[in-house]
């Protein structure tokens, strides 16, 4: 779908391969539990969503659906490549494609039941997770915020609605529209340059 621009270099592939081996304890495939062992992820409020994203077939660029139990290195790399920065000199068209790809990734992350829309429940869940560090109070706020956000999407995408209509959920097109203001290509980006070997050693000894 235009992932060519997102490809990682050979050196980075080698590094990621090492990491893969490390996480999977030298096996061929990676499982969810392997990712759950990463200590730094413990305090991350959205760790479950991210881990799920790695096992979600929709992100594998092969038009599959559903989720898998284990992934190979190829899938690992594919998911990682969503976070590659776009090259500097690309056409507007290519930039748009990269944008769509990254936003699709995000969309899949939110749309957990895979029905093509982000419903209120799913969105609420997203916001709840973000505020999950605040305990019970967080959940109430999250509901309010998610509600407001949905309403905003409704106004932006659908425009004026009659009193007895209601908004089903955010489709991918609406999602693209509402996030137009953020520069996704540059925002959603990891620098693969600085790999820290100390991290590898630490994990090895664990």
């Amino acid at each position, binding site marked *: 779908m235009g992932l060519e621009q997102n490809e990682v270099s050979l050196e980075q592939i080698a590094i*990621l391969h090492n*990491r893969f081996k490390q*996480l999977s304890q030298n096996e061929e495939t990676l499982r969810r539990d392997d*990712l759950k062992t*990463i200590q*730094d992820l413990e*305090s*991350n409020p*959205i*760790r479950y969503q*991210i881990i799920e994203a*790695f096992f979600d077939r929709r992100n594998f660029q092969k038009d599959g659906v559903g989720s898998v139990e284990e992934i190979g290195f190829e899938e690992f790399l594919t998911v*990682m490549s969503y*976070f590659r920065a776009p090259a*500097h000199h690309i056409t507007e068209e290519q930039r748009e494609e990269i944008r769509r790809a990254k936003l699709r990734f*995000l969309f899949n992350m939110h749309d957990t039941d895979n029905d093509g829309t982000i419903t*209120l*429940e799913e969105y609420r869940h997203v916001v709840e997770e*973000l*505020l999950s*560090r*605040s305990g019970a*109070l*967080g*959940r*109430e*706020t999250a509901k*309010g*915020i998610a*509600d*407001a*956000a949905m*309403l*905003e*999407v409704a*106004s932006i995408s659908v425009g*004026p*609605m*009659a*009193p*007895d*209509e*209601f*908004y*089903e959920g955010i489709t991918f097109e609406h999602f693209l529209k*509402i*996030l137009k*203001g*953020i520069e996704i290509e*540059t925002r959603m*980006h*990891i*620098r*693969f340059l*600085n790999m*820290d070997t*100390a*991290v*590898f050693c630490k*994990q090895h000894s664990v």
Partner: protein
Amino acid sequence: MRGLSLLLFITVASDATTDLYVTAASLPPELGVSAAPAVTSPVASRYVPEEYGHPGIALARSAEEPAAPSTEDGESSHQHGGGGYRIVQWEWSYVQTPYIIASWLLVASVAKILFHFSQRFTTAVPESCMLILLGLVLGAVVLIASKKQPYQLDPGLFFLFLLPTIVGDAGYFMPARLFFDNLGAILLYAVVGTLWNAFCTGFCLYGVKMAGVIDEKVNAGLMDFLLFGALISAVDPVAVLAVFEEVHVNETLFIIVFGESLVNDAVTVVLYKVYISFVEVGPGNVHTADYFKGIASFLIVSIGGTLVGLIFAVILAFVTRFTKKVRIIEPLFVFLLVYLAYLTAELFSLSAILSMTFCGIGCKKYVEANISQKSRTTVKYTMKTLASIAETIIFIFLGISAVDKSKWAWDTGLVVSTLIFILVFRAMGVVGQTWFLNWFRLVPLDKIDQVVMSYGGLRGAVAFALVVLLDKEQVKAKDYFVATTIVVVFFTVMFQGLTIKPLVKWLKVPRSTNRKPTINEEIHERAFDHILTAVEDIAGLNGYHHWRDKWEQFDKNYLSKLLLRKSVYHKSELWEAYQKINIRDAISVIDQVKVLIYSEDTNTVNTHPEQWAAIYAAARENGSGVCLDLQVIDTVPGAKIEEELETHHVLAGNLYKPRRRYQSHYSRHFMTVGEKERQDREVFQRNMRNRLESFKSTRYKRHKKDRSQKKAIAQNCSKTHLCITFVARKAPETPKERPKSGEI
């Protein structure tokens, strides 16, 4: 204007060569003594060879004067001689000093008003230009009137009072996240860029002198030129703020140039001190060890300054933790401690600007959370007012100082070559560093950015103040330098200031959007931080997000516990969420609603049923909706459970409800059970109908409406114990007029 010039004539005619070392110290302590404050302090005292950083010495000197009672300013009431009792007396000497200060402030403020009469004029010409022109005019007026120039931009006044005001304001309201995101670029430009500019300009000027372009009258050696290069090459924060404020370039560009102007203070301080000492010692006696001392000095000055600032930030945050009972003086703490950070750094001759900047950046988060809403507003407005006035005064006095010919000497060669060199070297420096920087940046800085950055390297009052501080004895060519500096500053502020706006438009520089991010964008911005951190952790990288996350953990577990008030600490995460995702906007979008209280946990509702009933009744009467005013949290007394309820009530709201789901687990309770279903539907309809109207109107308009209506209704809060603020809206129907059940 005539009234103003009359005022000036009066002050001049009083024959007081009043220094503008205006402090209470120079006021005569005893009432009856007709001591003219500092009347005899000679003009020369302004140019004492003090090291940069100790202008206070001259201040003290002027304070010694009032001890000598002078009767030159006659007409004091204690002048024995005339007979009888005077009904009305001319107490000029008594009120002189504060009168003059107040008059100047008034002149500056009135000037601002006058400028804004012409809209077309103000959009084309930046304020700083006009102020300098005004200064020139005023200076000419005063010169003609009194044949001497009593008013100058005095370095002591500048460094102790005017500059800290502006830098304090800038530091406190600095967008910290943006600053740290671009810290690498800022540091590079500030340190390497300034050094490059300073050395190149200095050496080239010396070369030009050797080549004979500069006249022989300019008696300066290599060291003098290096010193001059050092002080003329620093980008000035005051000028950058004044000009960029009107231009509105995108935030990255702004923060890089502005950050550079703040951080290069450390470099300038060190270079200035080092070269002054070299000049004093004589070029022959400079040893290589001194160069190393210079480098060490740089590290100490910059890191020391930062540390002083951070220490004061911690103290300030800690103090505000306990100010709950003394809300009224909270703003005072903020101002005092930030100012003290500046002065303490000056005391140790560290970089005062860095100190103040980091104090502001460091303390902001905790202070904003700890102090009350009113204090926050007070701090914001007072700082902005003071900074604005200080800026005005600086520019006017720059204009005035230029008119006094006795202080400067003109040399065409020097002036022209300096101008050329600073422009050329700035451009070269920017291009070179940007090429280097783009290897590491996520978003590279393109050619247009570079043009704006080179063009935006403005010099301003700091350079002028520094050059005026030079000692005539040590630096023989001082007058020439003063003239050159004046020309450079005028050129950058006026010419570059005037032309930068058209340039930015012509180059189609991406402008700042200035639009509040939508709720969805804010949610996703927040989500990105976590997503990127997670991916970095999975990939085993210790990248930028990883460290940011680690810092936030540290902050949450240790710093916030120490510096935030207990009640705020528990809500701090919510506070951030609230602040960023402005729920008030969300509520005003769907608006509407009578009181609808949500609780998953029925216990909380049952605990205070009478109170809820009272609230509901009150709300119904006023036809009001729920207002999410975080101030409510402040006004809640005592018990934790009340606070929880408060927050809970405050942060919830009937925002949206998909009809299909309203039987779900998350169904909401109303106070009056049984009418639930009908009320749901009714509310839903009303929501949808009114949504569009309120959503279409601008947010600011709504805010204004909020505030005025809020005030009107604020009295109603006395009905309830919890003192919730309601906002009255023109609701189409009150709950009393319920639609028939058949209506949908």
